[in-house]
């Protein structure tokens, strides 16, 4: 039993790492632009399918880099043409817009690549378990965790040490003052939106290798991302990181005792956090209220 619990706890953290990647992208956009991006799952799917289309030409490793960049490009255009029109309005406008976008992305993917699921092969070197005891830690899952860790490290370094990063952080706290200081807030938001969508695209490529591709796959992967943000605290990227890992762990451990509740437990956890600490574990009071 102890071994089973340990295995599921480690496994939960691996799943949590994936949630972190989804949630960080969502969180970036939410923090600076105040838009709850329901189309994030749709961009995830787009990233996965673009990687599928690119793999024959550039291989898995090339697609891993190019597909998220292309997805980010699409995100940039979408922000310029549509999303920026809802900034500063009632959050309902953003919700409706991104909800509609999610449908367009899903149906667009379906009409280009078909409704039937597509197989994605991963490099043979990553396709094996590392040991017979820890059979659930495959090379690919470890690679996913490594990629997430690298992305998180780069993102935090970018936000901490670069001019753009510092402006994004400042904008998250007080956009009006940042704007009054003469900083191009419109450009900053476009760039930030594209960075969030880059993370969605990267999630899509990684999820495709693990699960295969299917036009509706984004929907199921989106909700844990939102839950991670709420648990960790809106406005706090370290909170999002913590939230993602925590819900993964909770889901993994619950699967040992009540498998059918392994999905519900993340929402129970969210409810408990909201009751005890309404602004999330590391969130700041007053943001987005």
């Amino acid at each position, binding site marked *: 039993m102890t*071994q*089973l619990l340990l*295995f*599921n706890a480690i*496994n*939960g953290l*691996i*799943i949590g790492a994936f949630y972190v990647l989804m949630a960080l992208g969502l969180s970036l956009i939410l923090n600076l632009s105040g838009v709850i991006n329901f189309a994030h799952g749709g961009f995830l799917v787009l990233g996965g399918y673009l990687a599928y289309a690119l793999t024959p030409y550039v291989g898995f490793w090339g697609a891993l880099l190019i597909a998220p960049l292309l997805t980010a490009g699409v995100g940039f255009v979408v922000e310029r043409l549509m999303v920026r029109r809802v900034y500063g309005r009632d959050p309902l406008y953003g919700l409706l817009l991104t909800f509609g976008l999610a449908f367009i992305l*899903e*149906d667009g993917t*379906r009409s280009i690549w*078909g*409704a*039937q*699921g*597509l*197989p*994605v*092969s991963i490099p043979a070197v990553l*396709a*094996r*378990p590392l040991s*017979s005891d820890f*059979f*659930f830690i*495959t090379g*690919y*899952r470890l690679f996913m965790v490594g990629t997430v860790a690298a992305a998180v490290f780069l993102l935090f370094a970018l936000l901490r040490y670069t001019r753009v990063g510092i402006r994004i952080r400042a904008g998250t706290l007080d956009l009006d003052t940042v704007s009054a200081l003469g900083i191009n807030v419109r450009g900053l938001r476009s760039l930030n939106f594209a960075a969030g969508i880059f993370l969605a695209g990267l999630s899509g490529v990684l*999820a495709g290798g*693990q*699960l*295969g591709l*299917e*036009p*509706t*796959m984004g*929907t*199921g*992967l989106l909700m844990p991302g939102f839950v991670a943000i709420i648990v960790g605290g809106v406005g706090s990227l370290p909170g999002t990181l913590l939230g993602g890992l925590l819900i993964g762990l909770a*889901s*993994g451990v619950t*699967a*040992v005792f009540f*498998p*059918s509740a*392994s*999905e*519900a437990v993340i929402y129970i956890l969210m409810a408990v956090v909201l009751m005890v600490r309404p602004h999330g574990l590391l969130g700041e009071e007053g943001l987005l209220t």
Partner: protein
Amino acid sequence: MKKPIASGKIGRRTVLKGAAAAAVLQLTGPFVIRARGETPVRIGMVDPLTGVYAAPARNEVIGARLAVAELNAKGGILGRPIELLVEDSANDVGTGVQKARKLIDRDRVTFLIGDVNSAIAQAIAQVASEKRVLHIVSGGHTDTITGTDCKWNVYRVCNTTRMESNSVAPLLYKQYGKRWYFITPDYAYGHTLQEGFAIDAKKLGASILGDELAPLGTSDYSAYLIKARAASPQVLIVLPQGQDMVNCLKQIVQFGINKAIPVAGAQQELESLEALPPEARIGTWMFEWYWKQPGVPFVSEFVAAIRKRNGGKVPTARHWFGYTSVYSMALVANREKSLDAVKLARALSGFELPPEVKLQPNRVYYRAGDHQLMTSAFVGRAVARGIDDPEDLFQVLEVVPGDKTAPPVSETGCKVRWPA
């Protein structure tokens, strides 16, 4: 001088125009009457063209469209052309019901087909029953549709979950042993399917070591697989469908579990096998219909016809479901020379499909007691790569007749009540 807007007088030109219009009406009158004689017989089809079941739903529609084209070339129904009206249920019960009502009330369909999703199929059956419209459930498997919730006007083409478990359980027991472990999708279909296996296990003397209920839409099965491997069963029985099945099998192979524990299940579909990479096409399953049947009449013609409409790809069981649903309605209507729902529903009881429609070796008929089609189960193994054809991904070991896999009517709980 300006013309008055309304002078109150009827001008010469107006009279002439009126007369001309009346003359045209006289001329067109007979044509209108003749067109009424050729008013199409409308068949409504409700299927989830968007959402997780979009692939099987779209294939059912392709199959139905082929049947309509073939039948129209042979004179349609009672000499009238058939028109197929397709509506998207979006995999949502409320939407499905709304679309079924629209088809019946506004479009005046004579027959109804659908849905892939069992819950929607059941809800539509209720509407069709209220409105007294003959309804064929093409692809929703849950037992109650032709069991405790059966209706005089509702027939079903695809298997029940009991038929599915009965078709493979004896083979699993013989081939792998008596310690079974399940991964079951946590909704009506999964529950009834697992219950069917539990009844079979009791009969055969097998024991169930565990049953992991995974929510619908689970993308990561690792937690369940860790528990399943720890229990060391003799066979791991995987029951989720569609993308859930794809996710589960991929992880089983990535974890190397299939090297220690054989993998099997009930229903498998070509749509799922094609979505898997070759190394994950494993296991013992049943197909509800398979495209490669050497020597069985009319199968190769059907395969060729579907290929033309399906981007060169072979038909799956779903194409056959749609095709058979339309043909069943047309054949029985032409035989009875009627479109009356009660008359046709009675005529479908015990109706046997001809070889050009059944497309399989055994006798295939709608059982009178529960309106379930007694269709065969194609039991066999998934193969990584097709030898002659890249889509030949299943090796059929046995074709079990429907009346051997179906439990007796007395066990289904169905009591058909006919309208007075």
